[in-house]
């Protein structure tokens, strides 16, 4: 992402890297100290989400973890709203620097051993199976047809 620091100088910004911006494009300016604080806050919450994800191999995810994660997400949403709320003052009492190890951020595949077990047991389509499927379709159509006919008869009788 293109970004540049700058300094306020007589009600204008003196850009450090002015070559990044085209003449006509709109720009957004944030106080850099506040912005870094905001960025570190969100990083902290995301690291929190990764921590929720980290558990023993034998343990399974449960609803408590999900509730926790949703709470953290709620905080992120709040931070996102605060970004454009000029009344909010940032809290500079601490700054978070992410020291979470990369191995905790690794994505695990959603393809589980249960899915694999199901996939391995793919039925072989034999002519008999095909016929069975066909009959199922026919029976369903028959039932639908009967129901429609019955409704027709009821209408006719009522008239």
């Amino acid at each position: 992402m293109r970004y540049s620091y700058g300094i306020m100088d007589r009600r204008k910004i003196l850009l450090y890297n002015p070559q990044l911006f085209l003449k006509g494009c709109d720009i957004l300016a944030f106080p850099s100290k506040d912005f870094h604080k905001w960025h570190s806050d969100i990083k902290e919450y995301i690291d929190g989400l990764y921590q929720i994800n980290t558990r023993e191999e034998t343990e399974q995810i449960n609803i408590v973890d999900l509730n926790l994660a949703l709470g953290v997400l709620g905080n992120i949403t709040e931070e996102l709203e605060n970004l454009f709320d000029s009344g909010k003052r940032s809290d500079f009492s601490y700054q978070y620097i992410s020291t979470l190890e990369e191995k905790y951020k690794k994505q695990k595949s959603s393809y589980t051993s249960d899915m694999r077990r199901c996939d391995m047991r793919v039925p072989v389509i034999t002519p008999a199976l095909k016929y069975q499927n066909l009959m199922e379709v026919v029976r369903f159509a028959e039932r639908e047809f009967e129901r429609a006919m019955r409704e027709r008869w009821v209408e006719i009788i009522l008239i």
Partner: protein
Amino acid sequence: MRVSEGEPRGRFAELYNPGIFQEHEEVIVFTRQEFNQIYTSIQEQINYINKADLHLDRSEDWKLIGYWPKIMEKVHILDANMDSIFKKEPLQTYLDAYLYESTGNHEKKATASKNTVSVKL
């Protein structure tokens, strides 16, 4: 947070409301278009997770095993987005497309040619 829009003019950038910043305060400047892309993407990920939660019946918590990897996938995108703010590489979010754009596009409309074009049949 205090924020102002503006327009770059050479080495200087003019703000629409410069009064909110103090003199000699350091500011960080983004292009509005790119920041919009990042912001929308972050919101999109959060919405996805919230929707997944809404669809999940709390009494059937075994279904969570299937949902969780998808949720973490979105968290990963969130993390990547936050990292890409301070990176020099082009944004990945340029590849995203949304049905409803939160802000209008700023592409200039093509003006019709003033010269009359004769059509030979």
